[in-house]
């Protein structure tokens, strides 16, 4: 039986990419069709977006999902 992995914490570079593009949370929220609270929650790593939203964010920043969202094992 495979060993159960340690806690997988999903991290993201959303605030970095947003800062590079110089756009506000409100603007990004409007562009990807969510509320500002959701963007805040994703950036604060309190909420993991759905696959659809992850792809929408990646498409908006012209990157792929893996470079936007990545896993850090054993950390929260």
């Amino acid at each position, binding site marked *: 039986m495979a060993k159960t992995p340690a806690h997988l914490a999903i991290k993201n570079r959303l605030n970095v990419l947003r800062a590079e593009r110089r756009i506000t949370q409100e603007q990004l929220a409007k562009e990807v069709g*969510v*509320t500002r*609270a*959701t963007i805040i*929650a994703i950036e604060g790593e*309190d*909420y993991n977006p*759905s696959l659809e939203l992850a792809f929408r964010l990646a498409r908006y920043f012209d990157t792929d999902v893996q470079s936007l969202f990545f896993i850090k094992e054993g950390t929260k």
Partner: protein
Amino acid sequence: MNKFDRFFLKTYLYGFFFVIGLGIVFNYCGLDDMRNAVSPLRQVNNVGGFVFASWMLMTMYLSLKLIFSGSFRDAVLSRITFLKERDEREKLFSGQAAKTTFMLTLAVLFFLLSLSCFEVSVYRVPPEKAINGKTGVLTLGVRLELLKDRSAPAPETFRRDIFSHTDLPISSTALILLLIGWQIASYNLCMRRFGIRS
């Protein structure tokens, strides 16, 4: 929601204030005085009765529409209950809040069911009716009535009640209002709690 339903709903809501106003007028003037009054007070009584009857019919129509029409239910009840589902995160929280509310309501209903079923009486009987020399009696029972029994048994006149519990202490209207308020409050409190966490 179609135009007809929107018109009906607006008429119903504005009519609600009118019905309350009529209730105050009838209460102030007295129903018998209104019936025997000369015009125009009598006209107010006639028109008021017609409006009230129409409003009652509208209430029945809208209640049934809420049950059977999903889109109408979503449009109306989401406003009344302050339901927010603007994006996927709010939908997720809404689902969690709805689940918590459902479970809580179910727990409350179980509690109310047990309160309505159980019968507990503590009373004293006169010395000549004593059981094994004891005059204090405790009776326990379960009553599961699906239909209302209108013919209540005659109370035993010799017993002196100390404590008696046979049914819910509130009326069915109060209970329904309480459950509606409970559902709305529970859902919104859960949403707020999830919102603060995130």
